[in-house]
């Protein structure tokens, strides 16, 4: 990856271009179509949210982009261009040079994501020693600074501690520090707050956001929680059953959402203005089986607006606005939508 390292670091323009990415797992029960033709791009320094229920392919998407998945029994297709370099055909050795250096990842469960038998300091220094060839003393100095940056009190003391001596929030801060160590140009955060206390969640999200801005680092924030992406992203991808079904800038997604699925996700968030003891509107049913996805629109079996057309013809992504795409035959605001809203006793047009 000498080209990447010596190349002039452009801080504007396209950083990541994902084209028709496919990741299927070959299992005993059949082929699981976890990621099924995903296309999007991400500019330098931009923050992208990937939302969807559990099991709709968000995590696999993030790992497929990095190339972190196992080799065996995996079908991959499509292309991932990272700063103009194709990642999908790259050797493992070359990808290892990018991981942690150019692209970094933090995970859902900080309790299990740190090595339990290695001192915190050593784990944090590892990417520095591998990618930048830092000396032990040099790496230590950088690590102490990193710990301070992510808001860890007494960095000197933490350096020689083990993961089990720290709280969940602290461990996630350590994970963030580890990801930041080599100054990557994109950070993948896979449900970074799901395993944390509610009180700590906001702190961690703010920390990620601050660090992204400070380091001009792009962010891919994977979450099932629309509330999390609302305040911390520029653009949102909504995924369902391995496919992108809606893409929009964050503000217009919330004000002008097109997909019934997005609407359903949105309605399942408790709102402050609701009177207490209001029942949450849950989405009926479960995400589809990815071995045999439903025909037509994959959301149709759970969609209140679905018609026969939805159950037979799969909708293509279409543009509502140049930067707002959706894949639906009866989007929010359509005649069919209003009709069903009325029959459900809701006032069409109001959320």
């Amino acid at each position: 990856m000498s080209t990447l390292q010596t190349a002039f670091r452009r801080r504007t323009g396209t950083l990541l271009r994902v084209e028709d990415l496919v990741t299927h797992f070959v299992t005993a029960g059949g082929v699981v179509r976890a990621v099924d033709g995903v296309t999007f791009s991400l500019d330098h320094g931009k923050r992208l949210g990937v939302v969807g229920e559990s099991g709709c392919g968000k995590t696999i998407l993030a790992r497929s982009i990095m190339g972190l998945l196992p080799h065996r029994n995996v079908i991959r297709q499509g292309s991932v261009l990272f700063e103009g370099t194709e990642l999908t055909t790259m050797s493992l050795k070359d990808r290892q040079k990018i991981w942690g250096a150019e692209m970094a990842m933090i995970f859902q469960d900080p309790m299990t994501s740190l090595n339990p038998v290695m001192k915190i300091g050593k784990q944090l220094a590892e990417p520095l020693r591998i990618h930048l060839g830092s000396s032990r003393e040099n790496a230590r100095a950088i690590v102490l600074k990193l710990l301070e940056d992510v808001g860890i009190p007494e960095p000197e003391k933490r350096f020689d501690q083990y993961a089990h001596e720290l709280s969940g929030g602290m461990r996630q801060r350590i994970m963030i520090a580890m990801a930041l160590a080599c100054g990557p140009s994109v950070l993948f955060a896979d449900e970074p707050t799901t395993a944390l206390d509610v009180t700590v969640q906001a702190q961690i999200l703010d920390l990620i956001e601050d660090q992204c801005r400070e380091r001009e680092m792009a962010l891919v924030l994977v979450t099932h929680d629309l509330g999390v992406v609302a305040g911390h992203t520029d653009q949102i991808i909504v995924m369902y059953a391995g496919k992108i079904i809606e893409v929009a800038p964050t503000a217009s997604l919330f004000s002008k959402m097109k997909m019934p699925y997005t609407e359903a996700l949105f309605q399942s968030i408790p709102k402050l203005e609701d009177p207490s003891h209001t029942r949450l509107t849950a989405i009926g049913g479960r995400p589809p089986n990815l071995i045999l996805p439903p025909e037509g629109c994959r959301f149709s079996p759970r969609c209140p607006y679905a018609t026969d057309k939805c159950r037979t013809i799969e909708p293509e992504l279409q543009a509502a606005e140049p930067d707002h795409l959706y894949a639906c035959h009866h989007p929010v605001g359509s005649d069919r939508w209003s009709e069903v809203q009325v029959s459900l006793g809701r006032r069409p047009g109001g959320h």
Partner: protein
Amino acid sequence: MKYFLRKLGQLVIVVFAVTFTVSLALGAIPYAEERIIAAKGSGAINEEEKNKLLDSLNLREPTLVQYGYFVGDLVTLDWGVTLNGNQPISSSISDGLKISLRLMIYGQLVALLLAIPAAVFAAYRSGGLFDRFSTTFSFGFISTPNYVLATVLGLLLTVRWKLFPAISTDVGFFEAPWDHFTNFFLPTIVLALPLAGTYMRLLRSDLINTLQSDFITTARAKGVSTPRILFGHALRPSLFSLVTAAAVNVGALVGGSVVVETAFNLNGLGRRTVLGIFASEFRLVQITVVVLALVYVMTNFLVDILYGFLDPRVRVGRLG
């Protein structure tokens, strides 16, 4: 430190229990006195010598007093002589221990040197060709009785090809390194192969578990190379079963390699114990048992300490 002291306390209790039981055991042997006299050669000694001998063994004292004398003799190293041949028991045991310790150390080292790299590679490509191949072989070695292995290897390597002496002699390493190697090679291999099979199976399955942990994904995501993930991140947390099994085998090999010692004519501790039992050398057997118990207890103590190094969480007692 507290952990250390607690383990030390347990050690003292075990040593007490073993010495006490061993001391009492003599009283439970039917016709112990007669057997001792017989072993000495009853026709050859007169009544006075007989009484002197029995007195020196304190057989007619009350149980607790017997135990007192036994521990006293143990601690002051006044272990007496064998009934047959008047060899000091201490030198018999130390000669045997020297051979047995060598066999144990060589066997364990060879077993670990074979098992660890094989297990790491098998776990890394689990289900692959090497994994299946090594699984077959390790089960083969585990299930082959060691007298079969000793006989077959002995036949091939000493009788047919004459690479090694058929009867091993205890040659010190510093006296003649090459002879030492040729004399200990076969017994070591016969001890090591079944052990290596067991160790490989244990470590392989623990490693496969560890490699599925989240922290391994973290290490991969920060660009750690594959060998470094295997040996730097995954190996250490996977060593628990292996260390436990190896520790149990330390004691078992020192006292229990009777078959191998007999097959290669090495007068180790195990063989001396078995011969001692047949010859009614009760005192020799008693003291050997205590020595072996000490070996067991000491290795277990060291292993408990080692657990603390393997996983810092053990030190605060979360895992036990």
